[in-house]
């Protein structure tokens, strides 16, 4: 197994981007550069699918590890996957081709540049999920800002400049402390290699500060209340494909970071800060659900619902139980699929009517029946109906939470009800009701490529809702190992006074 499969996954999109860059641009060749992008992203998807198949789910260790000297004597380029990261890579390579398919309808100018930005972004996203060195991780984590900034700023809506700046500066401000922490870890332990750090452990007296520095970065990116305000702006102004990538993958980087670094490297500090995370997560779940209820803009509503869903994720991670962490990962994958689908759905009607205001729509069921069906599935997925993937995630998270703290779990359960409220109400206002608006009557039902992309997302949502085994299987060993290795159970018991 000498073929550097992970590096190929990382590099392939960049090679595609270079290829598109150097092909001479003319309007007739826009189509060809789109096919190149589609081909590259699909190739990447199948490559990662192959990775998932040959990946040995019963082994605890990181697999497909590649190591090369990079900054001599200091940082090595090191990548590898375990059961957790492989799912996120799969999610990334699955969502990106869907984004490429949608560009036809949504991107009117500079299609070539847009494809290049998306491909470069894919490189960075995959890099984040498989890097096994803190500096390499930071590099990919931060580098993703550049293409996303351009995607929002160039192809965004009216207030795109404000949103792009807010997105960039918020995230950068959050991340700088993480850089200080990473360098400090190097001087404390002598390495930034994650595997070695797992073995060495970090002295408990340093952990709290380091944890906070990492937290400041991940909290902004998750986003947790009260630093979530960049997300609605960024989502509303970004083009459809940008919103999809942002919601489906970029937000998951933080959740992944919490599991891989906060829990993995600083178990004592994680335990110490559990009340903080619980509080912020609960506020996020309840408060942003209420805010979502009041939104008049569809994209804003879904953006706030993302914050609420990510609240479940952080809650689940910091229950530090097998169910809680598995639930969080499942919830992230499921939310990646569902929120991507919801943003695509908004994109579909936005392309036709050029407004995202909910009250301009109504009665779509009679003119767009196909749309009504897929939108129904995604709505139910978002509110966590049994039989969709959303249910499994939320259920496992709540199970973990009930094990630890009944009050927290009860409040979080209220969030599920609120989630149902705003999603169903949104559905009612858009799909049902009377057809009043003249423009709406002229809208046509889903086109072929829209049917393809949306049904591609319906399938996994329902499949994993009924049969979550493949995903759970993949993460089970890694999560159990994470808990064992850091004695999270023992720490938990000590804290409970057993």
């Amino acid at each position, binding site marked *: 197994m000498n073929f550097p499969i992970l590096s190929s996954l990382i590099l392939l999109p960049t090679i595609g981007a270079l290829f598109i860059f150097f092909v001479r641009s003319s309007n007739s060749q826009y189509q060809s550069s789109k096919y190149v992008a589609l081909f590259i992203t699909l190739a990447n998807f199948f490559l990662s699918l192959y990775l998932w198949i040959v990946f040995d789910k019963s082994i605890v260790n990181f697999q497909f590890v590649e190591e090369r*000297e990079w*900054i*001599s004597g200091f940082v090595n380029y090191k990548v590898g996957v375990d059961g957790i990261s492989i799912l996120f890579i799969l999610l990334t390579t699955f969502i990106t081709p869907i984004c490429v398919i949608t560009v036809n309808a949504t991107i009117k100018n500079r299609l070539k540049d847009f494809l290049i930005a998306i491909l470069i972004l894919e490189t960075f996203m995959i890099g984040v999920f498989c890097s096994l060195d803190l500096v390499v991780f930071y590099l990919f984590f931060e580098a993703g800002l*550049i293409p996303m*900034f351009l995607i929002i700023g160039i192809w965004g809506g009216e207030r795109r400049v404000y949103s*792009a700046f807010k997105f960039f*500066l918020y995230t950068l401000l959050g991340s*700088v402390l993480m850089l200080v922490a990473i*360098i400090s870890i190097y001087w404390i332990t002598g390495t930034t290699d994650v595997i070695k750090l797992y073995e060495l452990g970090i002295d408990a007296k340093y952990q709290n500060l380091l944890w906070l520095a990492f937290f400041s970065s991940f909290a902004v990116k998750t986003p947790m209340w009260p630093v979530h305000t960049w997300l609605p702006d960024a989502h509303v102004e970004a083009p459809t494909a940008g919103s999809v990538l942002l919601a489906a993958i970029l937000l998951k980087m933080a959740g992944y970071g919490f599991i891989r670094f906060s829990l993995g490297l600083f178990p004592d500090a994680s335990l110490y800060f559990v009340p903080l995370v619980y509080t912020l997560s609960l506020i996020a779940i309840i408060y942003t659900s209420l805010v979502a209820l009041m939104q008049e803009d569809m994209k804003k509503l879904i953006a706030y619902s993302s914050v609420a869903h990510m609240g479940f994720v952080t809650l689940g991670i910091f229950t530090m139980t097998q169910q809680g962490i598995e639930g969080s990962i499942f919830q992230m994958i499921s939310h990646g699929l569902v929120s991507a689908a919801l943003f695509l759905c908004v994109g579909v009607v936005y392309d036709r009517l050029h407004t995202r205001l909910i009250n301009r729509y109504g009665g779509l069921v009679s003119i767009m029946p196909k749309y009504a069906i897929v939108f129904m599935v995604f709505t139910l997925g978002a509110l966590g109906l049994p039989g969709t993937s959303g249910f499994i995630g939320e259920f496992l998270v709540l199970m973990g939470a009930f094990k630890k703290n009944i009050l927290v779990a009860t409040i979080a359960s209220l969030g599920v009800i609120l989630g149902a409220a705003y999603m169903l109400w949104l559905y009612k206002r858009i799909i049902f009701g009377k057809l009043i608006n003249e423009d709406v009557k002229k809208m046509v039902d889903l086109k072929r490529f829209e049917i393809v992309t949306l049904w591609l997302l319906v399938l996994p949502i329902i499949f994993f809702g009924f049969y979550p085994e493949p995903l759970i299987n993949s993460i089970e060993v890694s999560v159990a190992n994470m808990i064992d290795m850091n004695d999270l159970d023992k720490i938990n018991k000590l804290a409970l006074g057993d």
Partner: protein
Amino acid sequence: MENLQLIIPELFISIMIMFLLIFGVFKKNSSQLVYNLTTVSLVAALALIINLDTQIQSSLFNNSYNIDSLARFMKILLILSGIFVMLSSSKYIQISKIRKIEYPILILCSILGMMVMISSNDLIVFYMGLELQSLALYVLASFNRDNLLSTESGLKYFVLSALSSGLLLYGCSLIYGFSETTNFNQIMVNTKEIEYGLTFGIVFILVGLAFKISAVPFHMWAPDVYQGSPTSVTVLFALLPKIAALTVFIRFLYIPFYELGDQWQMIIIFLSIASMVFGAVAAIGQKNLKRLIAYSSISHMGYALAGLSTGTTQGVQSSITYITIYLVMNLAFFSCLFMLKRNDEYYENIDDLSGLSKNHPLLSLSLLVVLFSLAGIPPLAGFFAKFYIFVAVINEKMYFLAIVGLLATVIAAFYYLRIIKIIYFDPEKEKFESKHNLGLKFTLLASTFFILAYFIYPSGIVDIISQININ
């Protein structure tokens, strides 16, 4: 005399200066020829330096002139930047009608002065080099003598620089008074205990040096001079004196006064923090690109000083790495400036860049890369420059400095983003000319490629720099 071969590059440049002066006067209309000959002689000087035996650690003239690995590396850096400046600005000086025979010769003079500064191991030799480069630069700043801003900037630079030279000389005399010598190594031997006069001497010299690299609070001249001078001279100001002054900083702090670290460390930390924060904040409101890059370079010098303030070899090496990457980034930025030309007129306001990406996709892509790199966003070279600095700073447990520095990068990111916003998000304006001479294109291409591809093999430069020993 057998050591004279070690200063052949300096001798060569001096001879070329005299030859070109005579040649230019006697041959009519030879300004372009002299310009090209200057570039060639810089290339020859570079070859001579590289040709020197790398193992040599030697001092000449009664131990007052050092030829060591530090001097060698910095001189190569200096002359390389000089060559690229000459290559990129040849068209500019022709169009702005400042192509006179004196222009390239003055550049040679200032480069010679800087080489002397870099190698100096004695207060008097150092001062001689400093004045040689300063006097040439005063004239260059006001070279566009029909332009009010240019003459003003030359005068302003002259008056303030003379003041700082005075302070510096006073510091030298104090140090001479308390240590009975002007030789750096001797000063170290003679000053075992701290005396107030000595501390004052150090402070005065640091003030003079801080002025040369425009560190806050001695930065007032920089924005005006950067804006007023012809752009081809602004590049010089942004690149060459920084190399020389930083080398003198390293020699001065790490040879004679290394033992007195606690006397100067706080001063350098203050200069560093003030420069980083002030440079970042003051650049936000600027409308002129040259003025903006002046504030940006103030801020960048703050980071270079942060590396020096650690008092460790690693810190010094991180500063040298920083200045190397800084040079490349600024070179790329100014090459882009030289390309903003329409009907024989150069544009230098930020608004002129509006919508550049529609008409000039490649130029805007280079600017995008350069600006994100200046802002220190990975995976571009600028990130690594800052990364090395913070590694050295955090190693010394100077967390406050590191956190302030990183917060300043976030503030600075705002104004770099603003330029990117204007290039990429705003409506387009009239096209600029798209024909440029080969030297300019090559400079931009090479520097942009360096910035983009640095992350592939970051060890290259660090390995070279790690062989420089300071003491």
